[in-house]
């Protein structure tokens, strides 16, 4: 299908989200929409999918103008969309989800799931999806759920597939698999619009790149374009991609974890006999595919798993068994991996969120009484220092963009003199400009002499920030390797090899290097 957008403008009141955007997607190609969070990519796709009516401009499908009253119209002409947040019913099977809204019925209105199952198997075989039509969706890994979404679109005969930030929820391996799938879809003549702000993927997958900034098309590029050039086009200024950092060896051991075992409620050992030291003035990056014990490890340190076994000693003092508050009072700063559920109270004001971990300490409080002036003063200071973009700190935290929300969390956690700083997924869902800023803040804390633990599923971020890298697999420590260890070795360790095995295997394979000399791409933007 050939798709053409001509002069699409979408404004909301006085705010123009899309400003006369022109876009042509040729049949059987992958067209990338590159732009930061809030650039207007999603609005444009919602216009294309019939969710918004454009203020002006028109959409042409195979050179014929079309008008969409809703997603059903868009699906009828062959446009399918895979949303960033999946639209699946978790307790339904794959077949039931695919059938939903597009049910085949036998006589008398009886549901004919067999036909849907057949269609799923056919598509699954053709593209090597390995999706069982009778699996229950909530039991499937995220990557497979995404394939179910793609199948949903294909069953409805989509010739053009919109993938909205498809890799945001995927592990590196799943991302690679998705890129393969996109290649096959393309080979079968399906056009694809791929929306992302991650440069590495965009370069890997696309035939054509259109860069959007502040609702306007600011340029287009070929996938061969230089990463730095794309980044500056996207952000609108020169971006310094390398932090120009020096690896640190750290000084004495400050945090010492011994034989730590953390069990989940079902008794499964999420962290299994783990021992680890972190030195002052170094960043220990914890790598691993999501769900291999990283979450439980940091939660145990901060005191959220009171029944963990083993020992976690900070400066010689045992932390296990202490309450979260006691551990925070001992100078542990913590950025949780999911800021919207654990890091912020979205209904609270930005000012209140900035004092969430010290609301009962002077000068914020005296006795039982809060000091509103002190809260406001701290907010003014932090909003300025961290450049939190808001009209006033009295606004609810929910009004901030993801990057600014993360700045609030980081500002709060770094506001005190720390003896240990832990950040989980510090830049997940954060725009490029803010990533750079957040990384510099974390490095500054390290240079201040604080031991730092970074947990990230983004290998680039791990390699960029880590002075040493600890790799977790199924709750076990596969080894701690130097920060300049190559992607190949880390990948093998993340798949369950010990450090020795991984180094041996990587050096045996031709063309693989065990350490990297050249500069790596910075964390989240790659």
């Amino acid at each position: 299908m050939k798709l053409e957008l001509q002069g699409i403008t979408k404004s909301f009141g006085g705010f123009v989200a899309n400003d006369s955007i022109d876009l042509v997607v040729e049949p059987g190609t992958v067209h990338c929409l590159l732009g930061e969070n809030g650039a207007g990519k999603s609005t444009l796709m919602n216009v294309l999918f019939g969710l918004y009516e454009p203020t002006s401009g028109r959409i042409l499908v195979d050179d014929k103008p079309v008008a969409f009253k809703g997603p059903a119209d868009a699906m009828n002409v062959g446009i399918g969309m895979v949303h960033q947040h999946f639209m699946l019913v978790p307790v339904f099977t794959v077949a039931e989800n695919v059938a939903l809204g597009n049910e085949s019925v036998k006589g008398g209105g009886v549901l004919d799931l067999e036909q849907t199952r057949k269609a799923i198997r056919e598509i699954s075989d053709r593209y090597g999806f390995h999706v069982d039509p009778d699996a229950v969706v909530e039991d499937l890994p995220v990557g497979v759920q995404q394939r179910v979404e793609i199948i949903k679109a294909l069953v409805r005969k989509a010739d053009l597939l919109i993938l909205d930030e498809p890799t945001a929820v995927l592990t590196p391996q799943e991302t690679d698999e998705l890129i393969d799938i996109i290649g096959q879809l393309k080979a079968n003549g399906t056009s694809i619009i791929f929306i992302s702000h991650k440069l590495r993927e965009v370069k890997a997958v696309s035939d054509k790149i259109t860069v959007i900034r502040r609702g306007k098309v600011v340029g287009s590029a070929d996938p061969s374009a230089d990463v730095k050039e794309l980044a500056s086009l996207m952000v609108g200024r020169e971006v310094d991609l390398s932090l120009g950092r020096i690896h640190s060896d750290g000084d004495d051991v400050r945090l010492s974890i011994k034989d730590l075992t953390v069990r989940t409620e079902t008794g499964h050992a999420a962290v299994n006999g783990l021992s680890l030291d972190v030195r002052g003035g170094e960043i220990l990056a914890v790598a691993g595919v999501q769900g291999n014990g990283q979450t439980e490890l940091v939660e145990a340190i901060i005191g959220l798993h009171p029944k963990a076994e083993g020992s976690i000693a900070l400066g010689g003092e045992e932390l296990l068994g202490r309450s979260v508050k006691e551990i925070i009072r001992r100078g542990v700063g913590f950025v949780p991996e999911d800021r919207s559920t654990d890091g912020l109270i979205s209904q609270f004001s930005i000012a209140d969120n900035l004092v969430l971990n010290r609301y009962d300490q002077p000068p914020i409080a005296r006795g039982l009484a809060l000091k509103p002036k002190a809260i406001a003063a701290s907010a003014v200071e932090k909003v300025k220092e961290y450049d939190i973009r808001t009209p006033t700190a009295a606004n609810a935290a929910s009004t901030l963009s993801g990057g600014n929300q993360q700045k609030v969390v980081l500002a709060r956690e770094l506001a005190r003199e720390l003896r240990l700083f832990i950040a989980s997924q510090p830049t997940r869902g954060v725009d490029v400009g803010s990533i750079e800023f957040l990384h510099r803040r974390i490095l500054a804390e390290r240079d201040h002499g604080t031991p730092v633990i970074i947990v990230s599923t983004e290998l680039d971020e791990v390699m960029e920030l880590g002075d040493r890298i600890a790799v977790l697999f199924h709750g076990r420590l596969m080894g701690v390797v130097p920060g300049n260890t190559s992607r190949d070795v880390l990948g093998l360790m993340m798949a369950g090899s010990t450090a020795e095995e991984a180094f041996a295997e990587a050096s045996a394979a031709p063309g693989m290097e065990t350490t990297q000399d050249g500069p790596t791409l910075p964390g989240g933007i790659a």
Partner: protein
Amino acid sequence: MSAQTTESTTTLAQRLRQSSALVSVLAVVLSLIVGGLLIALTDERTRGAAGYFFSRPGDTLSAAWQAASGAYAAMFRGAVFNYNASNGVDMIKPLTETLTMATPLITASLGVALAFRAGLFNIGAQGQIIIGAAMAGYIGFAWQLPWPIHILLVVLVAMLGGAVWGGLVGWIKARTGAHEVILTIMFNYVAVHLLAYILTLPAMLRPGSNNPVSPIMQPSAQYPLILGPDFRVHLGFLLGLLATWGVWWLLERSTIGFELKAVGANPSAARTAGINTTRATVIAMVGAGALAGLAGAAQVNGTEFSLANGIAASIGFDAITVALLGRSKPLGVLFAALLFGAFRAGGVAMQSQTGTPIDIVLVVQSLIVLFIAAPPLVRTVFGLNARRKRRQAEPDEAPPGNQPPSSSLTAGSSL
């Protein structure tokens, strides 16, 4: 994005709490209109005129109008100002009756509101009032103490009784994870029947009587009348105002309130920030119970002066409505309680003067809850939806009042 996910996971308590002030006011207006229609429909004259509606529709309409306006005018005379009265005392007496009726509602509703803010749906005000009243009542008639000490003790014991009754729920919830709605409902039953039982014990009854009514409170345990002997307004009203201020201070100006609100809004973020969520649950329920217990003392030592089975009337349940109507804000709760006090005071006058059954007041109160629980309905009725839809349509990447998308650039950018 995060706003969307949190929205989809809000609890019922959170949704109810977040309904706007405008919706509260409109819900009251709408309920009064529907109540007026019901008064008109049940009026004999209106129904008689409706029999020949098609020949003289004006008769039906004027009869309906007279029925509804007459009933509401009587309600106004009974609740606010009796312009038909012959002397000044009788003229303003209705307003003081409203204050009297509102007194137990104020503190009980503050208790419900306090628990709401901590994310707890406290259905148990009724039981907490009963326990508070029972303890205050016993101290009030059985003990002999000098005047100021007796009153003070009655107040403290009532609060203690309610606090224990509410705190038990908080403690069980914190320990076992049992849901507070179930717990409070069951504790209500226990309290009702416990009271019925102790009112069979000879020590609790008037000498020589088998009626389940306690002796009269000692004069030293009766709340003083604050506007003189002509009016029933008593010390409890001042305590209600004090409690309103106290709850406001607790919620808006104290570290405890900060904890309660944090736990109510996002327990996992609160826990991650070091707040002890089980402690917050217990504190909220203890506070809620103490406030409801205070309402119990107002009933038994302020207006009834003896302990009987119906001591709590339906105050504990009305308190839930009042807390919702006042959006769990102390000042909002105060005004909502005064409104409900006016309904009760006015309803009596309405029934005696126009024959409109007092049940219509209950209908209006119930409609208020219904409309508050369904804000979209109220918005549709008053045509507010168009505006809201437009707001919703704005992209989540650029919430209104926020900056344009360029805001995500960092410091030092020189655009």
